[in-house]
């Protein structure tokens, strides 16, 4: 174990002292988060459209509707719950306020009741604003009608919107891209170490080969976790993109994704002979994935044949899985399929690497 840790530390030192590698593993994805965050996230103070569903039709519900309409930030549409839900799923409105039947009667009787507020947690900025507004309006009503006792409450509801904000879409996508690059780029130092005879020299020591491979994997997985924390942290701090799903599941996916792409990196390293070759081939592998796997724009925008191509790319599934778990993004495939595809790539590429990898 001591040996494994020392080797891992040696690998980390080598990475940290290599400016080019450091750029690709950390600064490149961070740069993308900021770049695209600013490009797509700059819709700051435009109005937020919400739907208002009045199932009560009493002076109380009409008063509530007027209160929402008076808020300058909001544009209020009215309609049936089904219509408004459809509009929200389509991305036309960002939230729905529902005043259920019997609200007016309950207020008159001073018994506790609540209105429902549908928001999409993945577009957290909008849902926070709308929730605050609804809270203020409800408090105002309670003061006016019930002398401060909480008669009207807010019942938060969630509804997944197809149109998650661009930044919310991008943050898990860029994390997927970073993990892809982390794994695929692992081919370069491996080929370099073989070309320079480092692998052979270590082969002349009693060190078990699994430790040499293990230290590489360990180092990359550690970096994957750091990458995830940095990218999600920037998303949260600068662009208010919150993870709505399970952190544990997200962490598991980060490791699975990193593992699958590492296996691809190892498989590539099995067939590449020189560092120059490796640098070129790695770019040929990673560039199309970066642009076709639905990382910077939704998969649906691709023409049909490119969608077919993208369906073969593991990055499509990692991006999809991370978006589903982190921001309730739309599905390219069910989460189970995403996991199965990534596991498949992991197993197959590991098999190829185990058969074909040469130490010199």
């Amino acid at each position, binding site marked *: 174990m*001591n040996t494994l840790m*020392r*080797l891992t530390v040696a690998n980390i*030192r080598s990475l940290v002292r290599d400016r080019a590698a450091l750029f690709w593993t950390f600064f490149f994805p961070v740069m993308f988060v900021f770049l695209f965050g600013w490009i797509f996230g700059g819709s700051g103070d435009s109005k937020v459209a919400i739907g208002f569903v009045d199932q009560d039709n009493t002076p109380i519900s009409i008063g509530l509707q007027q209160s929402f309409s008076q808020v300058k930030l909001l544009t209020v549409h009215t309609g049936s719950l089904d219509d408004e839900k459809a509009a929200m799923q389509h991305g036309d409105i960002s939230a729905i306020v529902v005043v259920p039947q019997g609200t007016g009667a309950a207020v008159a009787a001073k018994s506790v009741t609540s209105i429902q507020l549908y928001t999409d947690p993945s577009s957290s900025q909008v849902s926070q604003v709308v929730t605050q507004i609804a809270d203020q309006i409800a408090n105002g009503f309670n003061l006016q009608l019930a002398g401060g006792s909480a008669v009207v409450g807010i019942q938060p509801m969630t509804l997944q919107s197809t149109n998650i904000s661009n930044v919310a879409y991008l943050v898990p996508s860029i994390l997927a891209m970073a993990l892809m690059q982390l794994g695929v780029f692992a081919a370069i130092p491996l080929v370099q170490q073989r070309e320079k*005879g480092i692998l*052979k*020299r270590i*082969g*002349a*020591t009693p060190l078990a080969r699994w430790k040499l491979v293990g230290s590489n994997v360990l180092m990359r997985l550690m970096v994957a976790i750091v990458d995830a924390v940095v990218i999600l942290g920037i998303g949260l701090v600068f662009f208010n993109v919150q993870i709505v799903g399970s952190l544990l599941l997200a962490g598991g996916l980060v490791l699975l994704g990193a593992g699958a792409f590492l296996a691809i990196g190892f498989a590539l390293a099995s067939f590449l002979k020189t560092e120059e070759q490796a640098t070129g081939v790695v770019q040929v592998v990673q560039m199309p994935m970066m642009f076709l796997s639905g990382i910077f724009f939704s998969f649906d925008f691709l023409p049909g044949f490119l969608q077919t191509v993208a369906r073969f790319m593991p990055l499509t599934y990692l991006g999809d899985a991370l978006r589903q778990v982190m921001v309730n993004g739309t599905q390219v495939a069910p989460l189970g399929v995403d996991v199965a595809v990534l596991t498949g790539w992991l197993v197959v590429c590991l098999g190829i690497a185990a058969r074909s990898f040469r130490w010199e």
Partner: protein
Amino acid sequence: MTQNGEPVIGVAGLCKCYGDVKAVDGVSFTVGRGEVFGMLGPNGAGKTTTIEILEGLREPDSGSVTVLGMDVTKHAASIKQRIGVQLQSVSLYPRLTVTELLDLFGSFYDHHLPTKQLIDAVDLGERAKARSMNLSGGQQQRLSIALALVNDPELIFLDEPTTGLDPQARRSLWDLVKGLQAQGKSIMMTTHYMEEAAELCDRVAIMDHGHILEMGTVPELIGRRFKERAVFFDTTPKLSAAELGKLDGVTHASQEDGQTVLYSRDVAGTIGTLLAMADSLSVEPKNLGIRQATLEDVFLDLTGRALRD
């Protein structure tokens, strides 16, 4: 443990092919404890293949190979604990420092020497914190030797340790090897420098095309082939090897790299008749000189070509 009289290396009938090429073709030799054994030959002679089989890096096709009394094909792991290896032209993790590399390699072994002691042994104290990529060629080679010493090995393999070094760096590396020999280490090395073999090796095997052509101490190898001394001068077209071979005392003549060498049992007689012959043809042998035969001459005589291409 190996008994004192038992060889540290025993090779018999070793063969190794790469496709159709017989890199090593029936090689046999032994190396005794405390001995410095040199393998001499041009590039592609099979030296590196032989040494890498001994180090457990390659599988032999046939033949028996024992290192420290153990069969290399069966006990590679235990052998690797007790040997030190310096490979031909290996650069190490370029961004790790000398100290970090020695610590790291030390951790690969059950027992290892303190890093400080190793750094002092190869005189790299001032460069201990330098990254290996920033070391000079000679310093990298010293580091490479320090790494070979990390487990305090009984037997050390050095594959062309001074190739590419300037004469001063080569000299200081020779001193290092002599120091190891004085400590009682057994050393097997390859080289294609004759002076290096003559300077360092107790015994030398001359290898070409996968075969050992001749083996013995340097004086033995020279004495076995050359009772004569060499008379040499710059080749001139008018003095042909065939004619020169007939001069007094000359056993044979060779012409290589613009130099004519006459191996003579009677140097005074040879020079006398040579000058007379040159005079009659109105030429003057330039840079005329006399020397003892060297390993270079042995190699030239064995293979018909000079060692350095």
